[in-house]
């Protein structure tokens, strides 16, 4: 998805001279061709994430469309106050683009894992929060939202799902509606595991690319079913649960640091978010 991020922003930059990219010393080489073509539009400003968000606010105040990019926990959890005040409260738009998702840097341990930011950012007034599932979704979401004057968050992953279907910002996809009593709702790259897990099971399946604004219409459609949220981060469960009087449960993260290493697949398996673990969780809701 990172390469797509570069390709999309570079393409936008050819059409829109207000596109500016700020890097926190990540993806430096990836953006070199961009920088060579537009030397005043890409800045590797260094490892100072809090300042980067505020600088983006300043650029936005003068009509630019900044993209700020570095590793997930450092740009989101570390910078909540800058995002809250300098972007949301001041009503300065910016595009916050992280890499690493929840466990892409599994081997680096809990300091590089990040699973709260979708839930935190969705609480900030004026904020848009997306979790693109693959390169195509990222491209669609950025082109749709990058210059709308709002702060928008895009959570990139190196492990996008392989499914291909059209998406729209703020709209869920009803991937399977079989009139079942149980509806699985999920978001982002883990859709691949969810689809595998649900194969042959009598469940409806709804997919979200956007956590805020949440597609309430899609949720309401399945109000009379038991909803099971499957996500490898916090955020979707909280967003869906904001709709009153639903029957919602969640198969997600434990209340502990996932202090293991290895790969994202190792951690997902350990916490039951591999296809087998999700399958078992869905089965338990059906029976």
């Amino acid at each position, binding site marked *: 998805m990172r390469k797509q991020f570069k390709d999309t922003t570079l393409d936008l930059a050819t059409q829109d001279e207000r596109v500016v990219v700020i890097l926190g010393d990540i993806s430096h080489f990836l953006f070199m061709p961009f920088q060579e073509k537009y030397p005043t539009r890409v800045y590797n400003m*260094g490892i*100072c994430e809090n*300042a980067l968000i505020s*600088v983006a*606010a*300043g650029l936005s105040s003068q009509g630019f469309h900044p993209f700020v990019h570095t590793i997930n926990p450092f740009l989101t959890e570390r910078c909540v*106050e*800058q995002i809250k*005040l300098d972007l949301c409260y*001041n009503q300065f738009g910016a595009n916050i683009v992280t890499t690493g998702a929840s466990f892409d840097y599994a081997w680096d341990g809990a300091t590089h894992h990040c699973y709260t930011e979708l839930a935190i950012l969705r609480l900030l007034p004026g904020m848009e929060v997306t979790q693109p599932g693959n390169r195509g979704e990222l491209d669609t979401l950025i082109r749709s939202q990058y210059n709308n004057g709002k702060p928008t968050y895009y959570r990139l992953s190196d492990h996008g799902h392989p499914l291909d279907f059209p998406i729209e910002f703020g709209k869920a996809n009803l991937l399977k509606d079989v009139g079942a009593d149980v509806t699985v709702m999920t978001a982002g790259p883990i859709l691949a595991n969810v689809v595998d897990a649900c194969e042959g099971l009598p469940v409806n399946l709804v997919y979200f690319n956007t956590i805020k604004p949440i597609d309430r219409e899609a949720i309401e459609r399945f109000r009379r079913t038991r909803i099971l949220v499957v996500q490898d981060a916090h955020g979707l469960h909280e967003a869906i649960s904001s709709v009153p009087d639903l029957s919602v449960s969640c198969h997600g993260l434990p209340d502990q640091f996932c202090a293991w290493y290895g790969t994202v697949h190792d951690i997902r398996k350990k916490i039951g978010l591999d296809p087998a673990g999700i399958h078992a969780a869905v089965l338990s809701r059906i029976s």
Partner: protein
Amino acid sequence: MTPACREIRRNILEASNLSGHGHIPTSFSIVEMLCAVFDTMRHDPTNPEWAERDIFILSKGHAALGYYATLAQYGYLPVKELATFGAFESRLGCHADRLKVPGVEVSTGSLGHGIAVAVGMALAFKISNECRRVFTIVGDGESNEGTVWESVMVAVNLKLDNLTILFDANDSQTRSLQILNPGDRFRAFGCETIEVDGHDMEALMNALSVPGSGVKAVIAQTVKGHGCRTLSNNVFEWHRKSPKSDELPTLIKELEEA
């Protein structure tokens, strides 16, 4: 003290008395700086959104009452509106909101934010080849925040010669983390640094008159509560205290005699 600076301070005292709000000593320490900035920068109170204006950001946002009194002095607000300071439906909160107050470019209050936004604005003007300057007042207490120094490093690295940082060295942190020798620190970070008496209008005007060859840091040595010895002799007691009606005449008298 110039008549304008004295009038601003009087309006601060009276507004604080009427409203029961305000950080008076820290507002008093920057009055000359505010006037020097507003006398230097290109701005138009009849058109606060003027596209060619320079930018001022009060990074030490808790001195908002001093900022409002200055905006009133320069025609952005009616002076009588200062009395609404901090009231429920007032435009004038105890920290300024850019969406409510004409002339306010960035809503500040949490320390260490305004200077970083100022860096982004200065960069924006460089990218778009606009000859517009950005001024920001940063507090010495505020400079306990790491983002102040992150911002200075970024600005210097980007060679933002259209950015002027006014550092209010009012010794606010003598009881905790004091920023000693601030001029040395800003020089070490690569700023073009000038040290002045922060209550000397002529010195401030000279320091601000032309952009630097790089990021300019004006280290302004100031006194919290400058102009009222009751305040300057008791800065911690008066940090966030408003004068009662029976205290106001003494403060006004001290101000008139300063």
